[in-house]
């Protein structure tokens, strides 16, 4: 009896296994998804933009990669050592092959980093601290840096490794050269070690990937094919999801989320993005352009900045302009990133009465008039946020003339020019957004947005308003080179307090990344808005 039961169970299990095995090849899992823009190039170093980096990291891999919580984990490197504070040494994973069959060796790493730091590359910014990349043996690579750079591994996780033999053969040793009239082979082809390989590339139409059968890692996804299509129009893209032509859409306009939620079999995924949208003041010029205050710059007075801060109601912006899709922030860095300090993330209270009092104390009992610059096609509802801000400031007596324009003209106007970094742009009050791109660390925010613009150090390039605090500058420079985590964190806390107490900026919120998909698609939404296909599962 007992025996027959056991037999029966075994049989059932065997049949089930056979059925499962038999079913697997038949159940082709083709995952179709759409975005409003195309991947601009298959070359992983062509543009320093989230979508391109994210897409191409499905085919190319770095020495490290990010897991579901954005923490680094080994990919093409298996071991990392630091023989000295300025030398990193990586042991490479063995037995890895590129999609084209070439074995992965140390030469590929040295070549790829040279290519990424070289002519035509757009991701060269990650190699500022690098002095030399050396091959130690076939499986060991070293980088020597000019100064201790604790964030090097983070930066390098974005740099996919390309096959040297393949690039040499196809004359793609450099990223596309914009001055020539010929395209680079790597613009339309790809050869990495990643979980997916390129099957078909039709620019602006579709890009088809298929799993890499010889991938070194065990696939978590169950896809047999991935079709990425570009659908530029918002309404059409949402229609394609509702009609079932695509399984997932990557960007969803805020006004369509409710409709998708109401549709059976479709779901909406939302997560705060790492980017902080904020307002800035010109604190550098002695007189602001287009303002009623002559002979002095009111924003140099901390009281005026605080008055502005307390007059802006971010909760109201969240409720009305953003339709709930924002996460108000007191910090210049978003949740989930290194250096985010929850204890400090408390906004000074919204208090228009106090604003009026502060303005009167500063010598502007009747307010004043000034200009605000704002993009109208860069951040979610950017122009509407500025309009709301103008209305809120009007209530405390500040009259603002809003100038909203397209991003190309906007950035050209408000940003500092790299060749003359210390010269203030002609702006007074403005909006900007920032995400600490490659490093996911607050130091990137400090050196780009908060440190004093300086020709000597090259810092502060995006500190358009020219906020300057010597104590902060000194701390930020120390943070850059500190490798002891506890000490570094303490300094970050201190620096954060300085810029908050100074009301250097008015941080508004993190946008919410909105994706939508069919119910049968399992995917992981990361707050950096990367979309690794290796986490996608279809039922």
């Amino acid at each position, binding site marked *: 009896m007992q025996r027959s039961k056991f037999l029966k169970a075994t049989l059932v299990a065997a049949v089930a296994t056979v059925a499962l095995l038999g079913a697997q090849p038949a159940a082709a899992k083709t995952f179709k998804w759409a975005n409003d823009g195309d991947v601009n190039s298959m070359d992983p170093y062509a543009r320093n933009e989230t979508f391109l980096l994210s897409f191409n990291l499905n085919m190319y891999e770095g020495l490290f990669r990010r897991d579901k919580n954005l923490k680094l984990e080994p990919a093409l490197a298996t071991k990392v050592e630091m023989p000295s504070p300025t030398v990193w040494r990586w042991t490479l994973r063995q037995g890895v092959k590129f999609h084209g069959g070439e074995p992965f060796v140390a030469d590929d790493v040295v070549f790829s980093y040279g290519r990424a730091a070289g002519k035509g590359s757009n991701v060269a910014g990650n190699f500022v601290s690098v002095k030399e990349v050396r091959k130690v043996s076939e499986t060991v690579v070293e980088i020597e840096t000019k100064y201790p750079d604790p964030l090097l591994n983070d930066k390098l996780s974005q740099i996919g490794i390309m096959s040297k033999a393949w690039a040499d053969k196809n004359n793609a040793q450099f990223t596309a050269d914009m001055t*020539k009239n010929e395209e680079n082979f790597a613009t339309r082809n790809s050869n990495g070690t990643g979980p997916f390989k390129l099957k078909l590339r039709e620019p*602006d139409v579709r890009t088809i990937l298929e799993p890499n059968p010889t991938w070194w890692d065990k696939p978590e996804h169950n896809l047999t094919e991935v079709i990425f299509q570009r659908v530029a129009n918002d309404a059409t893209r949402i229609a*394609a999801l509702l009609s079932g032509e695509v399984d997932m859409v990557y960007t969803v306009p805020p006004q369509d989320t409710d409709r998708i939620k109401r549709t059976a079999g479709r779901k909406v995924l939302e997560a705060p993005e790492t980017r902080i949208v904020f307002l800035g003041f010109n604190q550098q010029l002695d007189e602001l352009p287009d303002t009623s205050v002559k002979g002095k710059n009111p924003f140099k007075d901390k009281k005026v900045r605080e008055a502005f801060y307390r007059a802006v109601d971010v909760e109201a912006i969240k409720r009305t302009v953003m339709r709930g899709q924002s996460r108000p922030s007191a910090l210049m860095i978003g949740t989930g990133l290194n250096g985010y300090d929850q204890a400090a993330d408390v906004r000074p209270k919204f208090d228009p009465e106090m604003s009026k009092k502060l303005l009167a104390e500063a010598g502007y009992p009747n307010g004043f008039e000034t200009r605000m610059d704002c993009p109208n096609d860069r951040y979610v509802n950017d122009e509407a946020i500025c309009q709301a801000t103008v209305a809120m400031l009007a209530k405390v007596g500040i009259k603002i003339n809003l100038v909203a324009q397209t991003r190309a003209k906007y950035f050209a106007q408000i940003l500092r020019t790299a060749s003359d970094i210390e010269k203030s742009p002609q702006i007074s009050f403005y909006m900007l957004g920032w995400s600490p791109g490659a490093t996911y660390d607050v130091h990137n925010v400090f050196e780009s947005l908060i440190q004093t613009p300086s020709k000597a150090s090259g810092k502060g390039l995006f500190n358009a308003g020219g906020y300057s605090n010597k104590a902060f500058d000194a701390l930020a420079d120390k943070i850059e080179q500190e490798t002891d985590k506890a000490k570094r964190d303490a300094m970050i806390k201190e620096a954060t307090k300085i810029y908050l107490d100074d009301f250097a900026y008015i941080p508004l919120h993190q946008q919410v990344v909105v994706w939508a998909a069919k119910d049968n698609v399992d995917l992981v939404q990361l707050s950096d808005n990367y979309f690794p296909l290796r986490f996608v599962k279809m039922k």
Partner: protein
Amino acid sequence: MIAFIIRRLVQAALVMLAVAFIAFAMFNYVGDPVAIIAGQDLPAEQRIELRKSLGLDDPTPVRFARFVGNAVQGKFGLSYRTAEPVGKMILERLPATLELSIVAMIVALCVGIPMGVFSGLYPRHWLSRSMMTVSLIGISLPTFLIGILLILIFAVLLGWLPSFGRGDVVKLGMWSTGFLTVSGWKAVILPSITLGLFQMTLIMRLVRSEMLEVLRTDYIKFARARGLTNRAVHFGHALKNTLVPVITITGLQLGSIIAFAIITETVFSWPGVGLLFLQSVQAVDIPVMAAYLVAIGMLFVMINLIVDILYFVVDPRLRSSGAKAGAK
């Protein structure tokens, strides 16, 4: 005759030079391309390097001369957005736009002419009146709205037709065609209706008024007096004479259909030159915008040149004055 054509060619060249200048002017006034190419965190020295390598620091006349020189050879440089040669990008997308435009024009003719004939013959019939009303909608509704309504009905609610894209295409040398696959034909239906609707109503109204006019002329009365059948009168004599202006309009409208397919292509994500242009505008991809402008300018200049020459061939009066002018 030859002098006439040469004169026209010189005019065409001047027009093209003007178009080229406008296209070139964009390089100066549509924002800073380096800010677009470089992204936010490229180091300062590399920005300067990039400016230099793109030749953005040279004086304006030098840059214009270089632009025209390259344009004549069909070289518009690399796209700022994708780093592909601009000429190749436009050539690759041209078949999609041409196929869509031609299907749209055929739809417009095949539906517009019969409707125009019918409403011309029976102006008081209820069907004619309702056709006139519908055509008013076709003229007044904006293209993107018609497109989105069609998508909503035929793709989302009924699920019969795809909402975007071109379906599967077959490559015939340089040309990629969607006419050889079922999905290609399915995909072209909605966009061609959207694009052709305005032309259809235009043609219908044109044919109708021409028919009404022709039917009042003496030779139609004589034809009837001869005892010809209605069919012979309507289609053999009346329709034939209404078609001259229709052909002229069709020729000219084909140019504008190709040039202004931008909106339809955007709504349906149709991978043609219009969509390419729009995406290039968003990315301030000036080389593509400039090349597109020059190409469309070229198209119109060519169409006008052909029409001029055709008039010359068709109309004997023009020919004699042209001959005189040539003799001077």
